[in-house]
């Protein structure tokens, strides 16, 4: 698939923990979202139905509390859409499509909720 290919580049390590406790560590290219890091690596706990347009709330994650203050602040649309998640919203809820990975994300840990829809 050369059309969809991407050349090697810098990454940050992101760890995804499923609701059942399965741990997957992924090197996510800088500039990709935390959502893309999941779907490009076969992590099924993230659905991302709208493709990252902040319209569907099916890429909901719980961010490890130690990371909450280190992530970019939430915009109004993310905050609004988090009101319609299928699993309960908590203080550490984020939409992973809105978390665009920078080098500061290296070591981030997120947990996917029991259900996305």
């Amino acid at each position: 698939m050369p059309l969809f290919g991407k050349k090697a580049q810098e990454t940050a390590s992101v760890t995804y923990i499923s609701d059942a406790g399965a741990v997957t560590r992924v090197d996510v290219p800088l500039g990709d979202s935390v959502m893309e890091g999941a779907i490009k690596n076969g992590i099924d706990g993230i659905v991302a139905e709208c493709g990252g347009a902040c319209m569907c709330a099916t890429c909901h994650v719980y961010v490890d509390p130690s990371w909450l203050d280190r992530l970019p602040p939430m915009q109004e649309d993310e905050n609004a859409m988090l009101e319609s998640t299928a699993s309960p919203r908590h203080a550490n809820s984020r939409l992973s499509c809105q978390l665009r990975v920078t080098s500061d994300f290296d070591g981030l840990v997120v947990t996917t909720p029991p259900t996305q829809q």
Partner: protein
Amino acid sequence: MKSVVIVGAGQAGFQTAASLRMEGFDGGITLIGEEPHLPYQRPPLSKAFLAGKQDASHLPFRPERFYSDHSIDLELSQSVVAIGRASRRVALAGRRMVDYDVLVLATGARVRKLSMSGALYLRDIDDAIQIKARLEPAGSVAIVGGGFIGLEVASVARAMGKSVTVVEAQDRLMPRCIAPVVSDFFLELHRREGVNIVLNSTAIPAADLTIAGIGVIPNTELAQAAGLAVRNGIVVDAFLKTSDPNIFAIGDCAEMNGVRLESVQNAADQAKCIAAQIVHGPAEYKAVPWFWTDQFDIKLQMAGIWSPRLRAVVRGSVEARRFSVYYFDGERLAAADSINSPGDHVKARKLLASGEKLEL
């Protein structure tokens, strides 16, 4: 063990395959697409991808390994030429046959074309790549059709500094889907940004590049040839079944209660509905429609279906570019358009789903 064959690998077809596995379906799944590319998202083609803010690596729904990991037989560059309803098999070009227990028609739609030659159209990734390449050296761009696609392309082209003219045959923008008050807002927005908008016109001005977004034609020929009921789309009942109980139709190609929608939401929710039905048994399709468009720095989010007979109530400030328009059928909320007001949009979707009364 059943086998499901899905014709069309766009949003609806992809989601059917993915949702079947998510629901625990363990039969065969064949997903057949005409394009050579992995199934991918279309909304960015007229937005971030065209603007150069997102490259093609962000477009596929899932990487190639997703299909093998989930035992989905992905048949790309393949077209289905006939449906054998009695034998329950489809024929591919090249005469190969694929048997089904359940057939899903997610054949989508194709662009409507102008009678003039030389215009470009935007539907698939190859169209978008071509438009992007032609846009870069162009000084002036003529856009035929003031609908969502035309106006999204206009805003991208204008942001690149092109001289942009949009001609719309009707007396307002996006006339099929939104109310006049919202059309007026977008007319003002585009004009302020320097887009030349010509309403009530079909005269196409001379330009370096002409792009037309004048609607689509649903791909119903396969269904029609198989004797299925077809009107403005493949006719389906409340369960998304066609006139053949072994065949569903979903997404852009399907018409339910006289309505045929072209949207991510419609494609994905219909796909999830039939995947759940195949695994768990019959359930009616009841999702609330939603849609969005990005033009310049404005995000318009729509919930429900607008129609001209609905009463419009504006809340918020049009001048501050932050408002919602609620549409009522009597006392009942039927639709809402939100401009830079995502909280209103989410609330409207919830109210439309629950049927609760809106207090304004």
